[in-house]
């Protein structure tokens, strides 16, 4: 049983109530006004074919509020506004006790605007926007009783299905725009066969059909509609029977002139429509909830419409427009009466209803009129709709076999629907009055709102108004693409259609007679659940897929890294299209240098391997250091002394800092890391090894190819070699590059370096580990080491000074100088402990050092700007002032830059040293200039 929103409303009602009746009338004004305006416009529409207006909205995206009102739009717009006005009035009484009813009216109004927009939009994307608007409004209304779990899940289901369809619609429209070059409906409708002949036709057809089917509750997307009956009844009457669910029908009819008339169109629509028609009619009979019963019969009727559009004949479109009008009228009337019954008696369960005809005669009248029309009996408008429908079953162009199936299913569905109408009306109003069922006719506005469409069902059939016929003809013509004749005579003579109609009615009456037995038989065969289970299964399946997708995401770094490398390898294999490496001719002389290189290389490889094999962390770090040093040796042999020097000092510094950090780590944690690393499954290690070798081999291959195919020996080194002395006054090319040619980069580099220091400081300073404080801070007691430390610091400073002074002329530079001094400082930390080092070496103040380095770099850059008018052209103060300076040393801006680098590097490095080397957190951070 579907949750009853009204009980939820009632329970939350406040005693003084809510002036919702007034609201109802107020909110009925916009749709009523729209209805009248449309009526006034209708003659012009009929005369001119289509009224088009356009107001610019987002011109940059080619979007305009363009409105196109032709017969088809006018028919739908009239229904939307006319029924809308009635529904608002109805809702005013319906929601009387609900203090939050303003939400209901707001949502209904949102829906009204979106739906009108949808049917009059003259631009595909405008149509799409309104289309989504109706989905959202429907979602809000179905989930109106939000505290009810069923309502929430139903709302969610509806939005998932219709929203998903909406996105398919967007795709379809994008494709249509791409195929026709326009998003304007008028231009698209005038594009003739462009779409049908386009290579995109099938995708467009499928996507558009998907959108229409989801919105119009076609099998198997119908599942959201019965569940959607949790919506307040005014919404069910308005959205889920009369208007919104016909948006899909509108879309298909709208696009029929350019998409229809093909085999695929016929098969997709007719097959789906027929299936839906039967399915809905069959399941409707087994329902005991008034609204659910109506929902299934709506589904069936929507199937009829889809099937008709698929047939693509003039008579089919005549049947479409008549059925749209007939169904909207009787179904809204029936929904409103169901709502009244529910409202007055507190239930809409057929098993608890019955015999209400005396208690609520007005309601019964509306229900009887609606029911007759639904059953397709004369003299109602529904009869006319059914007659026209049956007459299409004798389709002249189809193979007789298909004709037979169509006729058979239409008759079967007709019989089932008739039985449903009977069950609905008789079950509620006829028979003996159930015990304890108190009811009377509702307030006048509610009753009138239900009676109007019911009466119209009769009136339109009895008094064939010429206006209606011509409007329907215009609508059918717009959908078919060429004029369609529509006459609304009830009596069309004796023929096969009438005979089939008689068969259907008789069958229906038989079904109605044995209704309870049929229902029992249906219970054995639970077809209805299948699709719901499929939906649940699909969601569960997607969930499972999702879990599988995140299964790799278990948080372990090793796997993440493996995936990354594996992906690189796969990218190379799949897309890199590796050409067999062109091996260079072996022109390398086999001399002592070559032997040395091979030796160094062998050590690099061996020590790298050792880092993995060696079990003690300390040893592994030392092996890493050895590997780095030997790479430096390779550079030295190149010869690239500058690079080698930088590499050596950095390598040493890294090792020292790592060791320093390691000694501060509690032994328990080191042991645990060791255990984790070495007792884990062997397989993992082997996989790692394979992957690592793969990556290594790939990198080696690429590097080899790079060497073998290098297009030019090296233009760059020559370029710099020629210009270093001339432009930068430097004999050391690397120095010139770093300081002069790429000075800006260097500036950023030292900033990054300092930043890394700040980062380490910020992270480590308040590290999560509680360390053993002072115990570790004693340092070494060896007097030899202590005296050595005293000697080495000044020595290193002298060395650094030389590097800084002659950075431009000789190997070595400010960077190396900075690292060397930092090394000496680390040595002090190790020998004397952090406390004493800090006390003694007061000038090692990381942050000021780094900042002053950066500042100096900026200052020297500005100096050259102000002196030379150019950034980074060296200014030699020494020569300008005529100072007697040693050969090779120039007191220039380049020198200042070297000093800046020195300061920044020393600052950054000592920040790291201080953070890793200091045993006690808070104090070191405090003294380094930290605020609280």
């Amino acid at each position, binding site marked *: 049983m579907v949750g009853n929103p009204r009980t939820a409303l009632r329970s939350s009602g406040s005693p003084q109530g809510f002036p919702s009746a007034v609201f109802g009338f107020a909110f009925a004004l916009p749709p009523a006004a729209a209805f009248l305006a449309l009526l006034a416009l209708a003659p012009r529409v009929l005369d001119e074919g289509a009224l088009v207006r356009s107001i610019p909205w987002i011109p940059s995206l080619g979007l305009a509020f363009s409105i196109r009102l032709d017969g088809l739009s006018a028919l739908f717009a009239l229904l939307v506004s006319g029924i809308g006005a009635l529904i608002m009035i109805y809702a005013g009484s319906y929601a009387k006790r609900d203090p939050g009813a303003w939400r209901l009216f707001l949502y209904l109004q949102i829906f009204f605007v979106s739906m009108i927009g949808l049917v009059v939009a003259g631009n595909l994307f405008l149509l799409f926007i309104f289309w989504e608007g109706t989905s959202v409004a429907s979602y809000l209304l179905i989930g109106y009783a939000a505290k009810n779990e069923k309502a929430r899940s139903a709302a969610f289901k509806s939005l998932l299905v219709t929203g998903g369809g909406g996105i398919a619609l967007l795709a379809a429209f994008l*494709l249509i725009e791409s195929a026709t070059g326009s998003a304007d409906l008028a231009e698209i409708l005038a594009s003739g066969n462009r779409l049908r002949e386009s290579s995109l036709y099938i995708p467009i057809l499928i996507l558009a059909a998907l959108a229409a089917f989801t919105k119009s509750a076609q099998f198997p997307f119908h599942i959201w509609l019965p569940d959607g009956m949790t919506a307040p009844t005014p919404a069910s009457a308005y959205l889920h029977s009369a208007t919104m669910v016909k948006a899909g029908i509108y879309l298909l009819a709208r696009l029929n002139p350019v998409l229809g008339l093909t085999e695929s169109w016929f098969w997709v629509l007719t097959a789906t429509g027929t299936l839906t028609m039967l399915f809905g009619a069959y399941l409707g009979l087994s329902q005991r909830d008034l609204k659910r019963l109506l929902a299934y019969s709506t589904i069936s009727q929507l199937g009829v419409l889809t099937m008709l559009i698929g047939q693509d004949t003039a008579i089919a479109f005549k049947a479409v427009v008549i059925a749209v009008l007939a169904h909207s009228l009787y179904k809204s009337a029936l929904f409103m009466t169901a709502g009244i019954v529910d409202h007055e008696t507190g239930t809409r369960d057929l098993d608890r209803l019955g015999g209400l005809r005396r208690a609520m005669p007005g309601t019964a009248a509306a229900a009887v009129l609606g029911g007759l029309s639904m059953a397709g009996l004369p003299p109602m408008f529904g009869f006319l709709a059914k007659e026209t429908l049956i007459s299409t079953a004798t389709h002249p162009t189809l193979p007789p076999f298909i004709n037979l199936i169509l006729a058979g299913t239409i008759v079967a569905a007709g019989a089932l629907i008739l039985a449903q109408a009977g069950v609905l009306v008789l079950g509620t109003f006829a028979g003996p009055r159930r015990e304890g069922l108190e009811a009377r006719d509702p307030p006048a506005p509610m009753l009138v709102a239900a009676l109007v469409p019911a009466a119209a069902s009769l009136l339109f059939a009895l008094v064939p108004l010429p206006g209606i016929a011509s409007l329907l003809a215009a609508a059918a013509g717009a959908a078919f693409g060429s004029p369609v004749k529509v006459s609304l005579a009830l009596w069309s003579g004796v023929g096969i259609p009438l005979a089939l109609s008689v068969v259907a009615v008789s069958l229906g009456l038989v079904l109605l007679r044995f209704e309870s037995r049929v229902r029992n038989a249906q219970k054995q065969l639970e077809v209805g659940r299948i699709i719901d289970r499929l939906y649940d299964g699909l969601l569960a399946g997607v969930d499972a897929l999702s879990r599988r997708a995140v299964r790799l995401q278990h948080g372990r770094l090793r796997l993440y*890294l493996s995936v990354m490398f*594996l992906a690189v390898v796969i990218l190379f294999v799949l897309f890199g*299209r590796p050409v067999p490496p062109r091996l260079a001719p072996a022109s390398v002389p086999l001399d002592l240098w070559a032997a040395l290189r091979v030796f160094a290389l062998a050590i690099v490889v061996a020590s790298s391997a050792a880092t993995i094999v060696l079990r003690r962390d300390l040893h592994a770090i030392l092996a890493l250091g050895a590997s780095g040093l030997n790479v430096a040796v390779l550079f030295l042999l190149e010869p690239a002394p500058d690079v080698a020097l930088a590499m050596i000092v950095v390598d040493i510094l890294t090792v020292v800092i790592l060791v320093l950090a390691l000694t501060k780590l509690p032994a328990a944690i080191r042991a645990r890391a060791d255990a984790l690393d070495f007792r884990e499954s062997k397989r993992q290690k082997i996989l790692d090894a394979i992957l690592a070798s793969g990556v290594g081999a790939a990198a080696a291959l*690429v590097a080899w190819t790079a060497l073998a195919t290098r297009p030019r020996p090296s233009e*760059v080194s020559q370029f710099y070699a020629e210009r270093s002395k001339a432009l930068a006054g430097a004999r050391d090319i690397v120095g010139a590059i770093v300081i002069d040619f790429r000075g800006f980069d260097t500036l950023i580099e030292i900033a990054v370096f300092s930043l890394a220091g700040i980062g380490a400081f910020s992270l480590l300073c308040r590290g999560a580990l509680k360390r053993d404080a002072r115990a570790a801070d004693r340092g070494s007691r060896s007097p030899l080491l202590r005296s050595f430390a005293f000697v080495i610091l000044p020595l290193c400073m002298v060395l650094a000074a030389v590097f800084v002074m002659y950075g431009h002329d000789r190997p070595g530079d400010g960077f190396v100088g900075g690292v060397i001094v930092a090394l000496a400082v680390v040595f002090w930390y190790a020998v004397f402990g952090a406390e004493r080092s800090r006390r003694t070496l007061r000038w090692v103040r990381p942050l000021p050092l780094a900042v002053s380095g950066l500042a100096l770099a900026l200052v020297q850059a500005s100096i050259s700007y102000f002196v030379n008018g150019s950034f980074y052209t060296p200014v030699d103060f020494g020569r300008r002032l005529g100072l007697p300076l040693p050969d090779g040393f120039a007191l220039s801006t380049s020198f200042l830059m070297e000093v800046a680098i020195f300061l920044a590097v020393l600052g950054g490095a000592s920040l790291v040293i201080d953070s890793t080397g200091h045993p006690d957190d808070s104090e070191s951070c405090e003294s380094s200039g930290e605020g609280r």
Partner: protein
Amino acid sequence: MSPPLFGPDILRALLPFIVVAVGATLTTLLGAWRTRLGLAAAVAVLAVAVLALRGAPESVRAWEGALVLDRFSLVFMALLLGAAFFTLFLSEPVLRREGRVRAEYYGLLLFSLSGMFLLVSTTNLLMIFLALELLSIPLYVLCGYAREDDRSIEAAMKYFVLGSFSSAIFLFGAALLFGATGTIDLAAMHGGDRLLGAAGVLLLLVGFFFKAAAVPFHMWAPDVYDGAPTPIASFMATAVKIATFGLLLRVLSFAFAAEAHPAAAFLDREAAEPALRWIAILTMSVGNLSALTQNNVKRMLAYSSIAHAGYLFLGLIPGSGAVDGAGVTYYLVAYLFMTSGAFAVIAALSAREGGREVLTVDRFAGVGYRRPFLGLAMTIFLVSLAGIPPTAGFFGKYLLFRGAIDRGLTGLVVIAVLNSALSLYYYLRVVVFFYMKETDRPAAIDDALGFRLAMIAALAGVLWIGFMPDLFGLPGIPSLLGWVQASVSSLP
């Protein structure tokens, strides 16, 4: 080639970067002196940066492409500034709530921003590397800022280790590319060895893919976003993505433009394009699929940001045309607002319990009733992320998808559309929870001003792009699209 001149133009071009970088230093120092000044200084720096941006010249190229200031860089810098403002709004209340207001936080944030500024205004590989490091190192630290939460420390560690590897891969690629073409300036690259060039570009791109969290280089993202403090997660989801896609746009435009002249090609298009396609498909599908079952909303947003990167990749594939710079940039503008907004809501709900954030979706039951504005705002952000009109997300997708179809990438668009349908599910699930009956253990809601401001700004942005993006404040530029198109016109 003589050492390039340093004229007033270059100074003005550098000014935005200088303002942010120097401002970062000053902020750190000021914050160290008086903690409260940190935020004020950061806001002031951003404000001055806005002025510097307005005064910046529109076409400067210096130092072998190390500094390239054109409209493209300016637009991206403006977006990055926006992301930084959002992050500041969120940071102040979160830091205060958790008692973590400290000197270096805002400084680090600004340093990272300065790296992003450089990243979008250079074509020089060396400078790209430096900029990447400059933006990453502060982020490594900021990710681990919530120190008593192990997940935060873990996030920092993961991001750092994997980030270092991605940097190494990038460097290798840059070296190969240099070997193939003899230059490190992308704009000057032409000819050279195709094989090496292709290998180099591929490795280069892997480095960027990592930063953009494209599948399969995405694995760090959910863990890191989840562990990092919420404002930082927001910063990474917005600013880092924007900067990376700016860079990708520039690099790929150059690469594909050079490819158009076969003699000058250094990129093997037939190799690069399928790779990009696969990455696009994988990124959106894995992102969306994984987001489906997330109960932690922050993690869900992490996966969602991966999925959005997937959609953005559509714009990077030239197909039968060229790289769709305008589509990508437009999408990024929309993405900035909706993602920042969603993170603002999450930040307001992310009070810690026992040192850990509790962000499971069931705790949010009923939030929509307790704070109607917050509920409405979150609904609109999520609806926009799902791409439902009329919101920013819809027009972003519309432009990207339309462009892709025009370039003949219909299959990809269909996959993207299917993915969008999938994404509805997990975005709406959160909305459904927001409007559920309250649980007995409802989430604490923080009403700090910063969150409010961020939400209002984001909401304004989302609705502005959704309803009237043609109302644009700058003189002479009629619309958002016009602004974006003008900016990408400076790409090749």
